[in-house]
C-alpha cells in the first residue's frame, strides 16, 4: 500500500510542474498586450508603455519570468493582480467558497436525480421511462450551458416569478461574510429569511451546472446496472427467491456503483469548467467569473495563479479518488505495485 501511495504522489509532482508551465504559457500565447488593452483607444506613448512593462516585470525574457513565477510559488506567493493590485491568492480564497458551494449543490442535484433515474431506467430496460431518461439525458448532455441558463431564468424567474434571477442572496440582506459559504453565513447572520433567500438563489444555477453531470451519471448508472443485472449471481439471487427490491438495492446496485463513483470523481474538473459559464450568467461571484475577466484583461498573474489553483484542486481530488480505489479494490493497488 505504501508503495502504491508513493507511486501516486510520484505522478502528482510532474503533473503539477506541467500545470505551472501550461498555466504560465497559455495566457501568454493569447495575443494581446495587457497594457494596450487597458488604455484602449486612448493609446499610450512608447516610453510609458515600456516603463509599465518593466514595472510589471513583463519586459524580462519568458524563461526568467517563468523561473521567477516558480520561485515565488515555492514561497507561497502567487503575485498580485495587475488590475486590482490585490494578491492573487487572497482574491481566489475570497471567491472560491462561492464556487465550491455552487459545485456541491450541482453535484448533489445531479446525484439525487441522476442515480435513481439511471437505476430505474436500467431495471425497466426498454420501457417508456427508459427511453425518456435516455432522450432527456442526451439532450441535457448536449445543452449549451449559456442558453440553458438563460432559458431557465426567463421561464422560472421572468415568467413564473418562482426564483430570483441572479446573485447569491437578495441584495437587501446585509451582513459580513464569515465562512464565504452563503448558506452557512446566512444562518449565522440570524436574519430572518436570509437562509431561505440564499437557498432560492442557489436553485437555478445548481440545476444549470448539474445538468451535464446528471446526464452522465444517469447514463452511466443505467449501463452499469444493465451489466450487473446480467451477471450470474443476480440470477442466483432471483432463483433463491429474494425480493426484487433486495436484489436491486443490495446485490446489483453495490456493484454497479463502482464505475458510477469513478464518473462522479471525474466530474469535478468538468464542474469547475462549467462553473465558469454558469457563474457569468447568474452573476455568481466565484472564481469562474473572475477567471473570465482576468483572461479578457490579460491579467497574467491572476490567470496563471487562478488556473494553477483550480488545477491543484482537481489534481488533489483525483489523487484522493485514486487512493480511495487502492483502498477499496486490492487489484488496482497490486497492479500499480507490480
Amino acid at each position, binding site marked *: 500500500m505504501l508503495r502504491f501511495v508513493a507511486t501516486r504522489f510520484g505522478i502528482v509532482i510532474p503533473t503539477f510542474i506541467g500545470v505551472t508551465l501550461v498555466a504560465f504559457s497559455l495566457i501568454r500565447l*493569447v*495575443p*494581446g*498586450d*495587457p497594457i*494596450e*488593452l*487597458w*488604455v*484602449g*483607444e*486612448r*493609446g*499610450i*506613448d512608447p516610453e*510609458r508603455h515600456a516603463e*509599465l512593462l518593466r*514595472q510589471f516585470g513583463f519586459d524580462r525574457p519568458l524563461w526568467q519570468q517563468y523561473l521567477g513565477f516558480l520561485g515565488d510559488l515555492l514561497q507561497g506567493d502567487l503575485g498580485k493582480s*495587475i*488590475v*486590482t*493590485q490585490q494578491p492573487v491568492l487572497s*482574491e481566489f480564497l*475570497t*471567491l472560491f467558497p462561492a464556487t465550491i458551494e455552487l459545485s456541491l449543490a450541482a453535484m448533489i442535484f445531479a446525484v439525487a436525480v441522476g442515480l435513481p433515474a439511471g437505476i430505474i431506467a436500467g431495471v425497466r430496460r426498454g420501457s417508456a421511462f427508459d427511453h425518456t431518461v435516455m432522450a432527456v439525458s442526451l439532450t441535457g448532455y448536449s445543452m449549451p450551458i449559456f442558453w440553458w441558463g*438563460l432559458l431557465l*431564468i*426567463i421561464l422560472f*424567474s*421572468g*415568467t*413564473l*416569478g*418562482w426564483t*430570483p*434571477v*441572479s*446573485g*447569491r442572496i*437578495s*441584495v*437587501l*440582506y*446585509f451582513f*459580513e*461574510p464569515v465562512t464565504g459559504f452563503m448558506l452557512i453565513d446566512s444562518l449565522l447572520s440570524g*436574519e*430572518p*429569511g436570509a437562509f*431561505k*433567500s440564499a437557498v432560492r438563489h442557489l436553485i437555478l444555477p445548481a440545476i444549470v451546472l448539474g445538468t451535464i453531470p446528471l446526464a452522465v451519471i444517469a447514463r452511466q448508472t443505467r449501463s452499469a446496472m444493465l451489466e450487473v443485472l446480467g451477471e450470474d449471481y443476480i440470477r442466483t439471487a432471483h432463483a433463491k427467491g429474494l425480493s426484487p427490491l433486495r436484489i436491486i438495492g443490495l446485490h446489483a446496485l453495490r456493484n454497479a456503483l463502482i464505475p458510477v463513483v469513478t464518473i462522479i470523481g471525474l466530474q469535478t474538473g468538468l464542474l469547475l469548467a462549467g462553473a465558469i459559464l454558469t457563474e*457569468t*450568467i*447568474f*452573476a455568481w*461571484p*466565484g472564481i469562474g*467569473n*473572475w477567471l473570465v*475577466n482576468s483572461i479578457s484583461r490579460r491579467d497574467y498573474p491572476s490567470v496563471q495563479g487562478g488556473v494553477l489553483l483550480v488545477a491543484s484542486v482537481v489534481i488533489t481530488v483525483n489523487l484522493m479518488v485514486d487512493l480511495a480505489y487502492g483502498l477499496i479494490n486490492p487489484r488496482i493497488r497490486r497492479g500499480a505495485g507490480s
Partner: protein
Amino acid sequence: MGVSGPSEDRYRTATVEKQGVEKVRNRILAAAVCVSAAVAFSAAASAKTLVYCSEGSPEGFNPSLYTSGTTFDASSRHLFNKLVEFERGSTKIVPGLAESWHASRDGLLHTFRLRRGVKFHTTRNFTPSRDFNADDVLYSFQRQHDPNHPYHKVSGGTYEYYQGMSMPSLIKDIVKIDDYTVQFVLNQQEAPFIANLAMDFASILSAEYAEKMLAAGTPEKVDLEPVGTGPYQLVQYQKDAVIRYKAHPDYWAGKASIDNLIFAITPDASVRYQKLKAGECHVMPYPNPADIAAMQADPDINVLQQEGLNVGYLAFNVERKPFDDKRVRQALNMAINKQAIIDAVFQGAGKVAKNPIPPTIWSYNEATKDYPYDPQAAKALLAEAGAANLKTNIWAMPVQRPYNPNARRMAEIIQADWAKIGVEAEIVSFEWGEYLKRSKNGEHDSVLLGWTGDNGDPDNFLYVLLGCDAAKDGTNRARWCHEPFNDLLVKAKQTSDVGERTKLYEQAQLIFKEEAPWVTVAHSVVFMPVRKEVVDYRIDPFGGHAFYGVDLK
C-alpha cells in the same frame, strides 16, 4: 471588505423591505402571475433603497489609478468631488469643491477659491478632524504628479488618465496660497484645462486620511476603503457581487434622496434585463439592442435615450498610396451608404455622423455638408484619381464598442458598397490589443475605430484624434497632418474665449470634411432602461452612471 457597520435604523428598514419582498413573492406564487417585486421596494418604508444592476466589478476605489467607466461609476461618481464638475446630464462645467476660479491674462495661472464647510466621510477607520481644504487638493494632485511623493507608487502607482491628458507636462506647479485658495501654474496655455479638472482622475481625496494610513503602515487602504466628500460613502464591497453605499449625511450640496444605494454586479445584459423586469433592480446599463423594443413595450420600464458623446469612424491611412490623394478619400466617402449602416448595424440606435465631433458638443458645425451617397460620382472621381479597380483592406475591430456595436458587419456593408464602384476590399481583424497596437503603427489602409469624449471639449476629439502630434504618435489613425487644420486647433487651445474657439473649430470641421481623412460613420444613441418608480434619472453624456439627484416614487 467592510468599511462601516449599518446603523440600527437602516437595518430595521432593510428587514421590513425584505419581508415586503417575500410577501409579494408569495402572492406571485399563489396567483401565478408576474407582478413586480419592486412594489415592495417602494411600499416598504421611509428609507429609500435604489438597486443598480451594474455591468462589472470596479478595479478599485481610487479613480486616479484606473481608466474604466465601471470603476468611475463605483468611485468618483459617488464617493468623491472634483474642483469643478460637469452639471448632471450635461457637459457644462459647474463649481464643485471650488466655488470660483479665474485665469491670468496669459492663461498660465489658474486660481481656485475653495468651498468652505465641506465634510469628509466618517468611516470605521477614520473620523475627520477638519473640513476639506487646500491640503487635500495638493495631496490628490501631487500624488499623481510627483514621482517622489510618498503615495506615488502606492497601489501600483499607474495614473494613466493623468498621463494621457498630458498633465505632467502641462502642470508646472500647484501652489497653496492659503487654506482655501489653490493656484495651478501651467507650462503653456491650454484652454481645455478646466474641463480636464472635471474628469474622474481629478477627484479630491482626504490628505488627513492619507497621512493617518501612511503612519499606520497601510497606505493602500486609502484606495480600498475610500474617504471622500461625495454624496455617498462606501459601506461594503463584496468582490464580483455587491457594492453598498449610504448617503453622506453632511454632504455639502444636501443629503441625497436615496438613502441606500446598492450596485448588484450582473455581467450579462440579458440577465440584467430579467432582473429589471422582476424588480430586482431599478436601473440597468448597456441593454442588448435586440431587447430595446420589448423594454419600450413594458409598462413598468421607461427607456431613456440620448445621443452618446462619441463618434465611430473609418480612417484612411494617408501615408499609403493612393489614400494620400484626397480625391480617392472623397470618392470612397461617397460610395458608402451610411443610412444602411445605421439601420443594419445600429438597429436604429445611431445617427449618421457628418462631423468628427458629436452634435452634443459645443462648436458642432451644422453647416457642414456631408458627402452624398452617389456611387456613380464616386466611380468617376476614383477613375479621375487613377485609382479605378483599387485593391485595399478594411480593418474591423473584434469587440463591441459604444460607438460601434458590430464592426465586422459594418465592414461587410462598406466592402459591398465599395465593390459597386470596383474597389475590392479585404476585411482584416486582430485581437483587440493587437488591433490597437498595429493600427497605431499604421499597418492598415483603412481602419474602423471610434472615440468617446472625456471632457466635453471639442479639443478632446479634434486635437487628440486628428492633430499633427497625434499623427506622430499614431492616435491619429489617419496619420493625417494638415497644417491649416492643425493651426486652427493650436490657436483654439490658446484662447479661453469660447466664442472665438467655436469659430475656429467650426472652420476646422469644414477643412476636415473637404480633406476627408475619415469617413465619419455614426454617433450612437445610448439607451438607459429604468423602472417607472425611478424619478429624474439623467443620462450622463460621458457614459457614466450617477444617482445623486435621483429619487424613487
